């Protein structure tokens, strides 16, 4: 499974700070950070630890089996944000 970030994300970076595997992007300082409307979780790297869910101040993060219907699209959207990146790119700091 994976966690996913929904459209109510406010780009508070609390989730990035607590993610133990660095799978939430873009990060402050990344070239695409300012233009990003929300943050995304890389489903390939997510270890389902729940830390980001606890950290999110607006409850915008859901386990993939608990996504409310209005945010159904978010599972595909999070994955799509990382599509086309190689494993090396995904795991680069």
């Amino acid at each position: 499974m994976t966690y996913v970030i929904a459209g109510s994300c406010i780009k508070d970076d609390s989730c990035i700070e607590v993610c133990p595997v660095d799978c939430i992007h873009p990060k402050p300082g990344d070239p695409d950070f300012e233009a990003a409307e929300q943050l995304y979780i890389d489903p390939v790297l997510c270890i389902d630890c729940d830390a980001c869910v606890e950290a999110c101040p607006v409850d915008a993060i859901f386990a993939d089996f608990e996504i409310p219907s209005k945010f159904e699209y978010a599972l595909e959207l999070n994955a799509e944000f990382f599509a086309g990146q190689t494993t090396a790119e995904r795991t680069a700091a």
Partner: protein
Amino acid sequence: MARTQERVAIVGAGPAGAFAAACLLRARGHTEIDLFERLATPWGLLRGGVAPDHQEIKRLQDTFDRQTLGRGCRLLANVEVGTDISHAELMRHYTAVVYATGAQTDKSLGVRGEDLPGSWPATEFVAWYNGHPDYREVEFDLSAKRAVVIGNGNVAADVTRMLTLSARELERTDVADHALEALRDSRIEEVIVLGRRGPAQAAFTSAELRELGRLDGVDIRVDPDDVELDPASREWLAERGTFTARKNVELLREFAARPARPDAQRRIELRFLRSPVEIRGNGRVEAIDIRANEIARGSDGSLRAQPVDCDPETIECGLVLRSVGYRAVPLPDVPFDERHFVLPNERGRVLTSAGDPLPGVYAVGWIKRGPTGILGTNKRDAEETIGSLAEDLGNGALPQPPNPGREQIDALLAKRKPDLVTAEGWRAIDGHELERGRNEQRPRVKLTSRQELLAAASRS
């Protein structure tokens, strides 16, 4: 040498001020912070801007409360800096003053008829439905069948949604009671949203755009011709387009391909490459004339809207909401950059007209960087400003003010603002509103007049 107590005033308790207070407490836990707010309630646009049907975002107020008021930062609300207390007075009482006053007015379109009754800045409609006390008495005429929203950003999306949501959905939100009543009786059936540029340049987030296509009983119309991108936009989207821009174009193509739903109760039509030319009517808005644009590459490479030589088109409507951006207003006795509508600053340190730092004066949020970004953008912005402030405090660059004691500012405010609202007063307001909400199965029922708010605060 004994360290003197640092006391910092933050002016404006919106998201930028709240993030700044939280950040300063993390950086220098011993600093005393007073958070000034013009209204009787804190959290600025989180309460008064974020749309009522986006309740999940409003949960951020718990974090603000916990990280600021919950950690000893004081709230001094219902106090207007510049009116009740001057900048010079703040400088006499605090080691530093951080302005977080936001952008309080709207940009104008510059077309004829803009000020006709029935043509409003979208921001005033937002303030009205969110229960901002200054807009409670405003009356929006929702008796015409068609409204036109000018602009393609998230405020345009919010007001379009608020005009088309059913009463049943609105009743589940914390929309102000006066707005709920007016919107329940609204006869608006169609909202036309005009974008000056094309689908690839729309400033909506894809989340907001997607929502417009998922409203209950609302048809969304996009002309297939409008989503045929011009060559320059196509090239830009393929080579440099953001993830959001690509998603927006994808969504708009999907909307354009949907069959019309004549049975829908309401309709949203998104039109692109259209600019208003004139708002017309006899004593009030009756129609808007618009013209077509095409995308042209500017000298700096940016893609701009350029008028096409053709006759204007007339759209009959009874309401026009103009949503083309916020703009900051100058603050008394503080430098202001009239070209960029911000406090001139370097990494948050406010600069004099000569370009030198004005000791002890800082800026954060929209008054610092202009009205850009989303809520969380203010967190990084606050980190920069507070970084500068913490550096200056750490270097001893900020002298002790003449009246540094907390009791001195308290004595002054007690005299001038006996109805000042503190954190306790705000908690009483908050508790009262939440309780009213529980009684009506709503997230919150807001108090919307200053008098009611002050009465609730005094019951703390």
